[in-house]
């Protein structure tokens, strides 16, 4: 499913959070959004998910504007994985994933065997089937985040949106999680913190700075020493790698000057 963002702006108490952002995410693409803290990534994500109404502009899925879609209909097409959504409820891993079926259930469509099958498949997909009976609060951060992805998959969406999904995970879980997402047959939009992860996994990257979209393209085109200095205010060496990707080494400004 294609996602179009057209001229999106968002303001909160007189402060512009996002200004005139436009892009198109192709069906099946892994689209990364990077930028420093406060650059408007999360605001942009929340507009793409229909959680916040843009002040101007529209988001559309395959040409259909989000504003015209009912919440339930939207939840069947697009699923969101938040940074660190947690609960104090004493629920099992499987119960958390079962929530993903919410947009399909109602008085006339109660829980059925099909829902069970979809939940089982989603848990298997993220490698969590063996932990389905475990209590949520006994699981690690990486396991919880996998379950959030399974919950999103249980929504049977066409688009998966992730807001810094790897925060607070160790490096093994970070790579594992992104690799898992990469291999899903979905359009993925992910706000990412780590530039190397963005370079490794994204087809294209959008770079945000102070609410504006300042660069958009394939990782090797976008992630240059100059852009990283401009946007993130750090010195870096970018090494080109195969397939249009690249890897980035950071260094303190002083040492770079000496090299």
């Amino acid at each position: 499913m294609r996602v179009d963002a057209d001229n999106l702006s968002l303001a909160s108490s007189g402060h512009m959070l996002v200004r005139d952002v436009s892009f198109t995410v192709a069906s099946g693409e892994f689209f990364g959004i990077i930028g420093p803290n406060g650059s408007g990534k999360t605001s942009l994500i929340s507009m793409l998910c229909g959680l916040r109404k843009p002040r101007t502009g529209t988001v559309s899925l395959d040409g259909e504007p989000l504003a015209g879609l009912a919440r339930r209909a939207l939840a069947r097409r697009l699923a969101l994985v938040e940074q660190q959504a947690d609960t104090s409820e004493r629920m099992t891993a499987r119960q958390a994933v079962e929530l993903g079926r919410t947009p399909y259930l109602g008085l006339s469509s109660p829980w059925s065997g099909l829902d069970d099958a979809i939940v089982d498949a989603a848990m298997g997909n993220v490698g969590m089937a063996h932990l389905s009976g475990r209590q949520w609060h006994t699981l690690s951060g990486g396991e919880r985040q996998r379950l959030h992805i399974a919950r999103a998959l249980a929504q049977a969406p066409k688009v998966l949106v992730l807001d810094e999904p790897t925060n607070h995970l160790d490096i093994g879980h970070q790579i594992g999680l992104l690799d898992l997402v990469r291999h899903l047959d979905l359009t993925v939009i992910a706000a990412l913190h780590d530039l190397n992860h963005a370079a490794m996994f994204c087809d294209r990257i959008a770079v945000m700075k102070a609410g504006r979209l300042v660069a958009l393209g394939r990782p090797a085109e976008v992630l240059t020493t100059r852009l990283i200095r401009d946007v993130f205010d750090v010195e870096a060496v970018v090494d080109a790698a195969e397939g249009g990707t690249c890897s980035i080494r950071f260094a303190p400004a002083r040492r770079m000057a000496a090299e």
Partner: protein
Amino acid sequence: MKHSRIRLAAGAALGALAALLLALWFGAAIGETAIPFDVVAKTAANRLFGASYPLAAIDEGIVWSYRLSRVVVAACCGAALSLSGVVLQSLLRNPLADPYVLGISAGASTGAVSVAILGLGGGMIGLPLGAFAGAVIAFVLVSLLALRAGRGSAAIILAGVAGSQLFHALTSFVVTKAANAEQARGIMFWLLGNLSGVRWPDVTLALPVALVGLVICLAQARALDAFAFGKESAASLGIPVRRVMVILIATTAMMTAVMVSLVGSIGFVGLVIPHATRMLVGVRHGVLLPAAAIVGAIFMIAADVLSRILVPGQVLPIGVVTALFGAPAFALIMSQRRASL
């Protein structure tokens, strides 16, 4: 496997209803003058199903006019307060939320007292309407304060504490300023929860409110499930968050207001019963809501019976009994939660 699960659920539901009926039966039989169980059953049969068992008029009168109406209202009240507790705790994602902590009960008391003692509304509005208005005003104030304080779940509890204190102070102010000694004593007793004045007309208010409240909450059971990971998560699961919150909070405010106007503000039921029920049946609201309603109803009937027999020859305010048992139970539940985290 599916059939056995359905049979199990049906069995549990029947068992719970039977327990509720048993509690109602006990509640009507036990009191200052103990009345044999068969007399209670025969009275109910006479009055409800037109049977004609010969009974002593005085026994039948006590059971029908005083005891049965009283236990039914106690049950409705326990059910409504527990439901409110479940809904508020899930919606606000805070284990401390209940109508009492959030100031709704305090506001209802102020509203009731303003009508009863100050004569607000010039006799045009009754005590229940006054309590309802007070509950709504208190909740709006607490919500606004919480929004200003930053929306978090701690903010709403702090705002609730502030609101409760304010409305308790207003209630005390009205009572000490305007009431004579006798009125003041009566109101103070009422504020701690008192079922002695309850008669059948109160049942015709309490029962529909509790049942309608249960149905409305049950209709939103899946939405409440979806709140487990917060508002944004619920919205991304297709829940119309604002509408659900307005409906459910209005429903809890209505239930609380009506119950407080009938029996005074009774604490700890809305706080403890939801936690205890979650430990029994889990977190799915489709099961949790009716279970909490029944457990709350039974708890309240038991508390009412205790309030009548704990001190011979004297009726304790029921709020005292619910707090005496509720506070230690809450402490126990909280420490268990901690241990398992």
